[in-house]
């Protein structure tokens, strides 16, 4: 019975999982392996690197995250 309950709760959690949308805050721990234009030489790029940071001209960053495939 307990196992069924756990499985049900697990499936309910999965079914209610949603993607981040407008109005949400990007997860600060989100990062992926860096594969192109990597001047810092870090293994991964984390969005948190831009949180509260400023560029060379003293401006806060606005991120345009564009997801694509090569086909």
């Amino acid at each position: 019975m307990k196992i069924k309950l756990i499985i049900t709760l697990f499936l309910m959690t999965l079914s209610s999982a949603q993607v981040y949308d407008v109005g949400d805050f990007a997860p600060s721990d989100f990062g992926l392996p860096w594969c192109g234009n990597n001047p810092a030489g870090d293994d991964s790029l984390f969005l948190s690197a831009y949180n509260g940071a400023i560029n060379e001209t003293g401006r806060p960053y606005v991120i345009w995250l564009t997801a694509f495939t090569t086909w």
Partner: protein
Amino acid sequence: MTEAPVTQEYFDLYADSGLVVIGMGGDWGQPYSCEGWVDNFGLGYPIISDEDTYNEYEYGGLGTNLFTDTWVPYNMIIDHTMEIIYSSSDYYGQEGYDLIFDKLFGALNKCTLCTCSEVLGDIDHTYTIDNEPIINIMDLLRLSDLITTDTRMNHCERGQGDITGDGVLNTIDLFAFVTMISEGAFDN
């Protein structure tokens, strides 16, 4: 594939204004590798690989599953507070890009208001002709609005409004601000 030159064009134009483009690619090798994609389109912004697949959700990896619920290309604009202000798949040609650019410009322009002056109490960013910050009752009203309406503050306002320096913005900061203004603590 057609979006890559557009993103690079805007990155070139607005990087100084704070824009950072991050390409999140996947399904490499059809036909481009990550390096090939960069070389072919002459891209200068960071590319991350979204193939660290944690599940079998059609294609893509963690990023695709976290941020998109539809197909690629998919674009998101994240402002300086890390709030997602635009999230959409854009297969709508110029009309779709116009929408992205509107959001982008709005966020970049908003950031001109939050360039930190590092002057305590400089909430509304008014200046004399000599570029000296003017700190007066208007800053107090602005801070009061921010605190009482629970409006989300940017990082500059948090710093400049924390009059007591305790790391928390609340009515105690307002009382402290009133006291400082009435006692002429600000030299203007």
